[in-house]
């Protein structure tokens, strides 16, 4: 195993450029699970990001919250301004594992791990996050909603690091996050939903319902158009256009669709005049 210990972002990017098969190591909460049983993982090369202090802090500007490439869930959970302005970040962060995971796990790691069940990603997407990617070739920005292209496939090249996640500061009149799992703490999501509404329109994002976390454009249009909805079943056609849940050891596809319909319906019943 080769472990590269850069002291600056520039060094880290050069190491990734020179070692294309190297894996970035952030909080390790995905990479080190069952580590002793996976000797093959010990053979890989890793670039350790933990020494890159500049990537850790998050900051507020007039128009944005900018998370660093190493900002942890706990960093945001303990930010009072986030609690007021972007509360879904805190609700979702507090659902990730338990405190010991929240202090180590990073938002960027959650994005780059690419799990369809990632709990940090839906709320970031519902807030229109931009992912900032950097390599020795330069810097680019990709809307998180366009970042995933397939199961665990994303628009990040092996030599690129996520160095920032940028969230616009807006007035939201509706912000909802729901995670349905088998138990309250430390459960992998069976159905997850994040909903926001602002002057920029509706955002409905689901996880664990498709090969990757995605915006539900048909649901968003249905809400935008104010189409009448009088039962959870009325939402099923839009849900079926938006997502493609699977049967797995945690749930069946049908269960996931029905739960998503019910969660959406009952969450929106009190706030949408078109719902009855």
């Amino acid at each position: 195993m080769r472990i590269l210990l850069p002291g600056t972002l520039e060094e880290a990017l050069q190491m990734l450029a020179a070692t294309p098969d190297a894996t970035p190591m952030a909080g390790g909460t995905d990479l080190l699970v069952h580590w002793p049983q996976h000797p093959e993982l010990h053979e890989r090369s890793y670039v350790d990001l933990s020494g890159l202090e500049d990537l850790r802090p998050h900051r507020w500007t007039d128009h944005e919250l900018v998370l660093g490439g190493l900002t942890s869930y706990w960093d945001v959970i303990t930010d009072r301004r986030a609690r007021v302005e972007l509360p879904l970040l805190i609700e979702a962060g507090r659902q990730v594992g338990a405190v010991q995971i929240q202090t180590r796990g990073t938002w960027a790691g959650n994005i780059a791990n690419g799990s369809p069940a990632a709990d940090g990603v839906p709320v970031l997407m519902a807030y229109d996050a931009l992912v900032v990617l950097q390599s020795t070739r330069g810097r680019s920005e990709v809307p998180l909603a366009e970042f995933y292209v397939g199961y665990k496939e994303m628009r990040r090249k092996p030599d690129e690091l996520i160095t920032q996640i940028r969230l616009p500061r807006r007035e939201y009149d509706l912000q909802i996050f729901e995670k349905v799992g088998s138990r309250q703490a430390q459960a992998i999501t069976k159905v997850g939903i994040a909903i926001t509404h602002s002057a920029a329109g509706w955002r409905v994002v689901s996880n664990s319902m498709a090969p990757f976390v995605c915006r539900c454009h048909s649901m968003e249009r249905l809400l935008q158009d104010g189409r009448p909805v009088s039962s959870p079943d009325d939402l099923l056609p839009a849900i079926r256009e938006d997502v493609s849940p699977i049967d797995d050891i945690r749930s069946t596809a049908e269960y996931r669709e029905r739960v998503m319909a019910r969660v959406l319906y009952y969450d929106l019943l009190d706030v949408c005049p078109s719902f009855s």
Partner: protein
Amino acid sequence: MSQRKTAGRGAAAGELRISFTLNGEPATLEVSPSERLLDILRYRLGLPGTKEGCAEGECGACTVLLDGLPVDSCLVPAYQVRGRRVETIEALDPADMAHYHARGTTQCGACTPGVVVTASWIVRHPELLETHSIRDLMAGNLCRCTGYDGIIEGVVDELEERGGSAGPGAHRS
């Protein structure tokens, strides 16, 4: 920062030399890139109080404080603690265990070091209870024996002894 450099830039060798603060004392040792913090504590530094349960971040038996925050040491690569502060169960005063004994917090004891490390963090930071319940904060420490109530009550007792209040969320489940 200077300590971090002891590991060398871009070290590709099998062994890395790291320095960090362990229970208030400076520590330096050579670690292999695949060793976890848990491994070096138990098998290299003679601190077996930190336990290994699941090795996947679920049970919290391996909880230590890293720069003052609870982490699962089974998920921390040893090289990542260079220049940082690590506190294990061995740093705590056994007298601080009195409340936990009195409440029947420990039976087989496998979870206890992790439970007590997390509890010690909570009682040192009563402001956490403005936003979290004790149960929320302890959710990453699984116990197969006691049923948790004794653990929560032990934390409440210690908070009260320290003069803080356990806060409105203390008993919420």
